[in-house]
Each structure stands twice: as C-alpha cells, then as structure tokens.
C-alpha cells in the first residue's frame, strides 16, 4: 500500500482545515458584512450550492479513476498544460497561505506582541514549515486529524459559553438587505468553502477512492455546520451594523468568556488552539505545493526545495506594506481568485476533459 494514502477521516479534516484557518481570521466578519442578518440563510444556501458543486466534481472524476486535476490536464492538453495548471494551483495555495499568514501575524502583533517586529512572528510560523515538511507527507495531515477536532470543540465551547450574550432576534430581518444581496451578491460567499480546492488532488491519495463523493460532501456539510456556529456567534452577539473589532473577531468573542471569578480571560487558550491549527494549515499547504511541484517537475525528492519554498513564503508574507493591504487582499481579492480557480477554471477543465473522454469512448465503440 502507498505510504501516503489517506483515510476517510484524514481527508475530511483536510477539507475542514482550510475553512478553520480562514475563520480564525476575518472570514466570519466578512460574510456578515456582505449579507448582514441573512448570513445564516446565506450559508445554508451556499452550502446547498457547494454540495451540488462537489457532487458534480466527483461525478466528473469518476471518469478518471485515480487521477487528479494535474493528470486530467495532462490528458487534456499535454505536459505543458499540466505544468500551467500545476503552477496556477501552487500560485493560489502559496499566495493565499502567505497573505493569511501575514494577516494572522499582524493580528497577533496587535493583540500580544506590540513591540515585536512582524518578521519574527511570521518567522515562527515559517520555521514550522521545513521542520514538518521534512518528516513525511502524512505527518501534518495526521496532526491535522488531532488539531481540527480541537478547534471545532473550541468553537462549540465558545458558542455555549457566550450563549447568555445572544440576542436571537438579530437574525431578523431574515433576508437581511434583501433577496438580491442574500442570494445573488451573497453567492460570492461560497469562497468560504476553500477546502474544495483540495478535492481536485484527493483521488490518487485516498485509500478508498470510491468514498470520494461521500467524504467530500461530509467535509462540506461539517464545514457548513462549523460556519453556522461561527457566524451565529458574531451575529447573535453583535449588531450587524456595529463595526466589530477588525482584529480576529473570534478572539474578540473569546474575551467575553468567563466562569466565575477565576476563569475570566480564556482568549489566550483559544488563540493557542487556533494558532496550532493555523500552523497546521500552512504545513498542509506547503506539503500539497511540494506534491504538485514534484508532479510537474518530476523531481524525485522534494527536500531540496523545502528551504527555498520557506524563504519564498517568508518573502511573500512580508510583501504587503501593512495590515490594511494584506487585509484588502484577504477580503477583496482572494474570494475572486478562489472562485475563479476553484469554481470556474478547474470545473471547466474537468468538463472539457469529460467531454473529450466521452467522445473518445464513442469513437472507440
């Protein structure tokens, strides 16, 4: 058996890890900003769409058993096309991870390390990449299997610990700013299911490829439930028109948790869990980028590129001049890049490959 094969649970938590890392940043607030009080309804709506989309991807993948998007692109347009697609995905993974890292580091600087240079905070996360990437591909994925449930539990804990501050009436008006904002403008919120990007690379990695549809849909549904919890926290605790602290909204909520006179400020503990999950997310991104790079360049061992990759990631993370610029990327540019690459380019590629395959089969008949 291939040593890098993933079990069902590992694959599900892999899909979740992207959502988890993003929600630790400003995702929940960004969702609420777009759809206001109808965010919960919007999440249900985009969940249905994401599930349909995932079903469609898995259906198309059935024609190409054991192949990922790179193999399919090679089938479609040869090696050069495969390289182009590979580099697009590496670009997407690296850029998004680095900008998220910068944002997270900026938030940590504001919250805990005001006198520390941002480079040191970023460097801490970057150091973990080569260390864990040198272990093996499965190491960070399995670590993710332990860490993601912890994050989920932390959110559930936050939810119930803050339940006394909830004002359920805040979900009204149920359609927020109106039907158009909820169902048409709010369609862009589908970018919150960023874990879908990994589904394109899962088929050859799974122990049981036949379970691709099941695990992908399960991953999306759990992500959706998680998002509902997170958004509920923000929506029920703060008025939508009141600007919530722009730095780590979940952290702000965690500051409200208190049990008696002893446990009054537990936000650091939550932040500890979230930063572990964020480091795990970075490591997963790095591992997938190495895997893609290995596939397109046919190198035998990825170890020599680990350090250059880490330095590159550090450089990209330090590119934005300040928090405002990196935040703008996260909230204004990233969603469109994600939707463009994951929902349009990749789907179009799969569809064309599917049609080509069908035509080829018909010709053979």
């Amino acid at each position, binding site marked *: 058996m291939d040593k890098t094969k993933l*079990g*069902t*649970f*590992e694959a599900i938590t892999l899909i979740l890890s992207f959502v988890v890392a993003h929600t630790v940043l400003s995702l929940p607030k960004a969702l609420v900003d777009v759809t206001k009080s109808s965010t919960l309804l919007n999440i249900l709506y985009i969940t249905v769409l994401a599930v349909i989309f995932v079903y469609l991807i898995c259906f198309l993948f059935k024609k190409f058993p054991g192949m990922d998007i790179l193999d399919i692109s090679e089938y479609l347009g040869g090696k050069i096309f495969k390289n182009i697609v590979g580099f697009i995905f590496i670009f997407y993974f690296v850029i998004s991870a680095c900008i998220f890292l910068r944002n997270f580091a900026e938030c*940590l600087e504001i919250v*805990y*390390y005001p006198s520390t240079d941002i480079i*040191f*905070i970023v460097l*801490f*996360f970057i*150091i*973990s990449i080569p*260390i*864990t990437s040198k*272990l*093996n591909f*499965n*190491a*960070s*994925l*399995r*670590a993710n*299997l*332990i*860490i993601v449930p912890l994050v989920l539990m932390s959110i559930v804990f936050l939810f119930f610990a803050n339940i006394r501050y909830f004002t359920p009436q805040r979900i009204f008006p149920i359609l927020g700013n109106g039907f158009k904002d909820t169902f048409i403008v709010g369609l862009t919120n589908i970018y919150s299911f960023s874990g879908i990007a990994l589904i394109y690379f899962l088929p050859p990695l799974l122990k049981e490829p036949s379970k691709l549809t099941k695990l992908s849909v399960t991953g999306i549904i759990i992500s959706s439930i998680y998002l509902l919890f997170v958004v509920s926290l923000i929506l029920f605790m703060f008025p939508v028109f009141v600007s919530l602290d722009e730095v780590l909204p979940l952290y702000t909520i965690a500051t409200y948790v208190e049990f008696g*006179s*002893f*446990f*009054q*400020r*537990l*936000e*650091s*503990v939550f*932040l*500890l*869990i979230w*930063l*572990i999950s964020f*480091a*795990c997310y970075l*490591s997963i991104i790095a591992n997938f980028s190495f895997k893609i790079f290995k596939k397109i360049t046919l190198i035998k061992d990825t170890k020599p590129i680990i350090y250059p990759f880490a330095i590159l990631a550090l450089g990209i993370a330090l590119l934005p001049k300040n928090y405002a610029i990196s935040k703008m990327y996260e909230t204004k540019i990233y969603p469109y890049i994600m939707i463009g690459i994951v929902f349009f380019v990749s789907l179009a590629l799969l569809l064309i490959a599917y049609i080509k395959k069908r035509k080829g089969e018909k010709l053979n008949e």
Partner: protein
Amino acid sequence: MNLKNILNNFLWRKEEKYDFTLCQSKNSNNANYIDDQLNLPENMFNSLSDNINIIKSRFNSMINTDIIIREFYININQRKIKAFIIFIDGMVDLNLVNNYILKPLMLNTTNNSENKILKESNKKNNKFTRSKKIFLEQSISNTLLPQNNIKKQRSFSEIISSINSGDCALFIDSLPFAFDLDVKGFKQRSISTPNNEVIIKGPQEAFVENLRTNTSMLRRIINNENLIIENVNIGKITKTKCAICYMRNIANDDLIAEVKYRINNLEIDSLLASGQLEQLIANENYIGIPEIISTERPDKTTKYLLQGRVIVIVNGCPYSIIMPGLFIDFMSSPEDSNIKPYFANFLRLIRLLSLTITLLLPGIYVAITNFHQEILPTELLNSILSARQSVPFPVIFEILIMEISFELIREAGVRVPSPVGPTIGIVGALVLGQAAVSANIVSPILIIIVALTGIASFAIPDFSFGFHLRIFRFAFIVLGYIAGFLGIGIGIFVYISNLCSIKSFGVSYLVPYAPKEDSNKNGYIIPPIWKQEFRANYLSTKRKEAQEKISMKWRYK
C-alpha cells in the same frame, strides 16, 4: 652514603613521575588479531592431544584460573581410553560433575551388564555398524552418562560457546566430537517482586537475569504450545542469548519476520542489556521518543504477547522488550486490566493530564508571566507579582534553576545508597526549596509549579517516556520564554507532527487516533472486559477474536 646522596635526599630530588601511556598502533585491530592468531579449525580431530591443545590455547588455560581441565582414563572392556573434561569453575554444579560425569566414567566402566547387552545387540543386529568408535560412543552415551541433556558437538566454536555458557565438555580419544553436558549451576537471583513497575492489584513477580527462568515464567502464564520461543545469539564476542517470543497463531508473520530480520542483522561485538538491543533495532526519530516497550513484569509481557506483539528477552537482563510500542501503551499501566474500567479510565485520564502538565506546565507558566498575564485572575496575578517582587532574576532563569535542581535531586536520589535516600528528599525538598524561597532566589509559586511538574512526571508509567517528556519540557520553557503562546503553539504543532510521523515496526505511533483506525475497542479508553471481543486491527493479527461475543455465558443460562 656519600655526600651527593645526602644532598639529593634533603636538598633536591629528581621528580620521578609514574606515567603510563597506552600505545596506539595505527593498523592493529585487536579483535581481528586474536581471531587470526588462533585460526581455530572448524571441526574436532580424532586425536585427543590435538583437541586438548586447541582447547587449552583457546581458553588460555595457563592464565585463566577458573578453566578446569581434568584428564583421566575411561575403562571399557579392559581397555583404557584417554579422555578429558573441561568446564568453567563457578558456572557448573560441581556435585553433578563429580557424581554424574567423573564417577560413572572412571569407576563404573568395567564390563557392566548393559555394556554386554549393547555389545550383543550390536552383534545380532546387522543395521548397526560394528566399528569400535560407534560402540564406544554408544556405550558412553547410553550407559555411562546419566544426564538428561547431552549433545554431540563436532565444531570447536559450538562446544566453546557451550562451555562459556556453563556446560561441561567431554572429549574422548579417537572420537571426532565432544559430549556437551548440561551441568549449569551458577548462582543466580531468585524471582522477586518488581522494583520499578509496582502495582497494587495483580501479580507480584518480576523477570530475573536468567533467560530460561524468564521464558519459563511466560510459558507458565500462557500455558499454550502456540507460544514460540526462538533463541538467537547476538554479539561476536559475548554471543548473548536472546529469546524471540511470539504467539504463532496470533502475531502477524510480517511483524515476526521484521523483528527477526533486524535482530539477525546486527554486527556488534557485545550485547549486555535489553536497553542496548532496544536502541539497535528501533527506528531513529528526531525527538527520542521510545518506540519499544520495556518491562520487568511477566504479566504485562504476556498481555502484549496475547495481543499479537513480539517480545525479546535478553539473557542477563531482567527486562523484556515489546514490539511495536505505541503511544497508548506508554500511558498504560499493568494495573489497568486488573481494576474496574471506570477506575482504569479515570487513571488513564489522570495520566494524560500528567503528560500535559509534565510537558507544558513550566513553559505555560513562563509564557503567562511574560506575555499573557490577562489569563490570570487579578488577585492571583497580584499574589504572583508580589511573590516575585523580591526575586532579582528573570522568570526563565528562576525556572531553569529550579528545574535543573529538581533533576539533580532526582538523579542523586537514584544513585545514592539506599540508607541515605530519604536524606536527599529532605535536603532537596525542604532545605533547598525553603532556603531558595527565603533567600529570594525563586518565588513560592514557582516551587509549586516545579513540584507539580515533578509529581506529574512520576505518574507517567513508562520510565523512558517520562524521560523524553522531562527533556522536552525544557524546549517548551525556552519557546514560552521567546514567544509566549505563539512559541508553545508552534512547538506543540511540531511535536504532534513528529509523533504522527513515527512508526514503530510498521505501525503508526498515534494509532488508532492519527491515523484514525477502528481499534475494536482497544484504544485509550478501556471498555469493560466482556466487551473486549476483538484484538486491535492495527496489529493485523491472525486471530481477530479475543473472546466469544458473549463471554459471560452464565448470565444467559
């Protein structure tokens, strides 16, 4: 005495310092040199004088005082045949040698009735060779050596190995082999209670240094012929006997083969203890976490044997090593299966808590006091600050002083002679702790942190695992000091990733949790004994069922 001597003695004396330096020859390899010099022939000779010369030369009988070579004559049918025995004094039972080897051979060999019968049967039966050698061999083996364990050894290396392990060798003129007689009789420790893995409820016997005693303990508990005990010799010089034990009908064949492969491919001169073997056959990992369980308890060993694991016992070491060793095994105690599952699970949760405390508490304390003070209630923060007010050192220095002092006390406590042991505790805990606080070197809260960490480290059932945690605690202290929870968080992630990357004999270290596998209720939480119907999937055992689906049939009759 002349004047010069007097002056030399009283006024000036030339300093004559005794100085010994070991000469190092550039090209010599001592071990090879000895082997080449001896150039031992493979098989024995017919001539007794040749054999005795080789044996004497091999054992350096002129220098070695405990090598006993006794030459004598055996009388068979009025014919005197020259013979000799060789054994190591102190390793054999001299009573057995005198009464059951020398006495029959030297005194009872004149035309006894059995010899006559043997001679007649040889004459009648054509299948028997009539050669004198065979007659001699048979008459000695069948009538003159009243021993239950006699082997014929033709090669010098084998008979020498047997002599070294406490056997007596009998060489007879004209026979190209020697009789290997098992007359071992060296002094050894009797079975006693475990010293390092103490439990309240359960068997109270521990392994000893003798390999056969240890294997007999396993046989006695398992009481099944499917228990296989294979012997291998490790070490070119020591040829240490090791027993590879497994249940033929349970253990995975690949696992057995892997253990044998690793053990049979060791090129070492000596093996003195199971700890060395553990290091030689385990995979390397960056964090030095143990991948093989080591225990002095036969009951624990048996439990793992029945789960489908492979055990190795090294002669001369009262510990068995168990493969593969997984994370959940290092957090389990032999007592867990002897008490009700509620209590066992409670204890396991306590151990998990103790692991977290041992590894992280000092680091978290440093992180909180330096970066995350808001986590503490105001009153507690005030009391910590007021306690630290008179301490002139930074927290990191303070905690390192105390942690290293604690390690010193612990190490001294282990090495110190037992009558002085309690003194170390008193000096360490009371005098040093109290004095350090009074002298404002450390704060009282830090004493509590260090003490709690120390106590928690003692709750880890496995010594090697506890050691690993003790070492890594320092890494988390440094990380906490550098970057607070950020450093600790990254440290935890790297640590967990490392754990996830480790495999012990082909089994993932954190199984059944990462990767998630169906453990058939063999995970960290123990189900009631009647629910333990299957063996763990991750060991891929031949026999999946551990008991019937309904084990307590009496309830349904």
